[in-house]
C-alpha cells in the first residue's frame, strides 16, 4: 500500500461519483425524504419518532453504501479496469481502503445532512450528542462498503449484485431490535441477531439516545462494528486476485 496511490484512488472514486448526479441524489436526498416521511408518519408521537429516526440514521447509510459499493466494485471487475490496475503498482489494500475511505467521506456528508435535518427541523431528541450519532452512522456506512466489496465477488452482473441487498440488509434490519426487542426474541433468533453487525450499531445508537455520556456498551458495540468492517475487508482482499483463469 502506498499513501500516494491510496490518495489518488480515493480522489478517483469520489470524482466518479461526482459525475453521477443521480447517485449523489440517492445518497444525499433520499435519506432526507425518508426522514421527512417518518416525521409525518409519527406526527405528534415524539418518543416513537425519536427511537425510529435515530435507528434509521444508522440504517440508511448502511443500505445505500452497500448498494453503491457492490455495483461500483462489480463494474471495476467487469469493465477490465481491475485487471489493468493489477498490472500497475496499485495494491489490493489501496483499492479496498480507497473505496472504504472515499465512500466513508461521502457517508460523513450524508450523515451530517440527515442528522442535521432530524435534529433541527424535526426536533429529534437524544440524550447523547449529535457527533456520536454521526460517528456511528459513518461506521455503518463503511460496514456497508466492506460488505459490498465482498459480495461483489459473488455476482457476475449488476442485476445479480443488487439481489444481494435483500439477502444481506433485510435480515439485519428485521433482527436488529428495531421491530422486536432482541431479548424478547426466540433463542435461535437471538443467536442470529448476535452475529449480525447491524445489531450492534443499532444498540450503540440506542445507547446514545438514552444516555447523556457515551456508555461502555456503546464503545463495545462500536468496537464490534469496526471489527466486522476489518473482517469483511480482509475477506474482500482474498476475493481480489491478481491472476485469474
Amino acid at each position, binding site marked *: 500500500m502506498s499513501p500516494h496511490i491510496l490518495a489518488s484512488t480515493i480522489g478517483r472514486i469520489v470524482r466518479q461519483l461526482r459525475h453521477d448526479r443521480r447517485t449523489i441524489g440517492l445518497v444525499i436526498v433520499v435519506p432526507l425524504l425518508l426522514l421527512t416521511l417518518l416525521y409525518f408518519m409519527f406526527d405528534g408521537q415524539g418518543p416513537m419518532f425519536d427511537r425510529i429516526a435515530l435507528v434509521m440514521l444508522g440504517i440508511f447509510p448502511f443500505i445505500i453504501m452497500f448498494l453503491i459499493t457492490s455495483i461500483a466494485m462489480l463494474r471495476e471487475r467487469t469493465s477490465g479496469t481491475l485487471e489493468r490496475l493489477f498490472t500497475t503498482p496499485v495494491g489490493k489494500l489501496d483499492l479496498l481502503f480507497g473505496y472504504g475511505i472515499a465512500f466513508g467521506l461521502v457517508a460523513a456528508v450524508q450523515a451530517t445532512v440527515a442528522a442535521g435535518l432530524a435534529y433541527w427541523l424535526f426536533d429529534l431528541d437524544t440524550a447523547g450528542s449529535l457527533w456520536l450519532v454521526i460517528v456511528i452512522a459513518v461506521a455503518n456506512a463503511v460496514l456497508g462498503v466492506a460488505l459490498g466489496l465482498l459480495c461483489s465477488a459473488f455476482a457476475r452482473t449488476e442485476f445479480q449484485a443488487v439481489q444481494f441487498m435483500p439477502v444481506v440488509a433485510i435480515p439485519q434490519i428485521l433482527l436488529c431490535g428495531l421491530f422486536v426487542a432482541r431479548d424478547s426474541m426466540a433463542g435461535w433468533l437471538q443467536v442470529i441477531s448476535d452475529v449480525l453487525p447491524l445489531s450492534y450499531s443499532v444498540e450503540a445508537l440506542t445507547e446514545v439516545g438514552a444516555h447523556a455520556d457515551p456508555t461502555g456498551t456503546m464503545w463495545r458495540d462500536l468496537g464490534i462494528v469496526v471489527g466486522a468492517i476489518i473482517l469483511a475487508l480482509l475477506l474482500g482482499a482474498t476475493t481480489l486476485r491478481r*491472476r485469474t483463469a
Partner: protein
Amino acid sequence: METAIEVTDLVINRGKREVLHGFSCAIPRGSITGLLGPSGSGKTTLMRAVVGVQLVASGRVTVLGEPAGSPPLRRKIGYLTQAPSVYDDLTVRENARYFASLYGLRAADAEAALDGVGLSGAAHQLVGNLSGGQRSRASLACAIVGRPEVLVLDEPTVGQDPVLRDELWARFRGLAADGATILVSSHVMDEANRCDRLLLIRDGHLIGDDTPAAIKATAGTDDLDEAFLRIIRQQEKAAA
C-alpha cells in the same frame, strides 16, 4: 540481441480447455513484435500471461529478467486490454491523470499521453460519451502514460480510421526507437508488415517466428495473408 520477454513451455488452461500447449518464444528488446493469429488462437491469453494477470498451469514467463507479474515489473509494463478498460464515468483527462498518478507521474505527463493518441481535443469529455475509436484511444493513453519499458497492446488499432492508425503506428515506432519493447496483437495482416518480427500463432501453437520479409520469402509469396495460409498447409502436410 538482448531478450526482453522470454516464454518457456507455457501451458494455460481456460475454462476446461487447454489454450496454450507448451508455448515458447523470445522477444527482443527495443523492437516491435507482432502477435498474429485468428480469433481464438490464444493471443490475448499469451498477453495476459506476459503482464502477469493470467493463471498459468505450467511453464515460465520472464520479463526484463523478472518473473512476469512480479512487483518491480508493475512500474515498467503498460497493458492495453482488448476491450477498452477505462472509467466511463470519468473524463478522458481524469482517466489519464489517475493512471499517471499510479506511476508517480503528474498532470503534464497525462496531457502528453493524450496528445500522443490525438485525444487532447476530447480531454474534457466523459469517456462514456466517446465513440468506440476514441474510447480505445483513451485506453491506449492510459497504457502508455507510465512510459513503460515493455508495452503490451492487444489489438490497438481496431476501429481507428486509416489516418489515425498510421499516426498510432508512427507513435509505436517512436516508442520502440526510444528503447521500449512492444508486443502488439493484430489479425490485420496489413499491420503485420510494420512489425520488426512476427509471431504466428494458431490454436495455441507457435507456427512462425521471423521477420515479415523472411516469413514471406520462406513461404514464397509477397502477401502475408497468403504466407500464413501456406505455412499452415505445410505444417498440416508435415503432421499428416
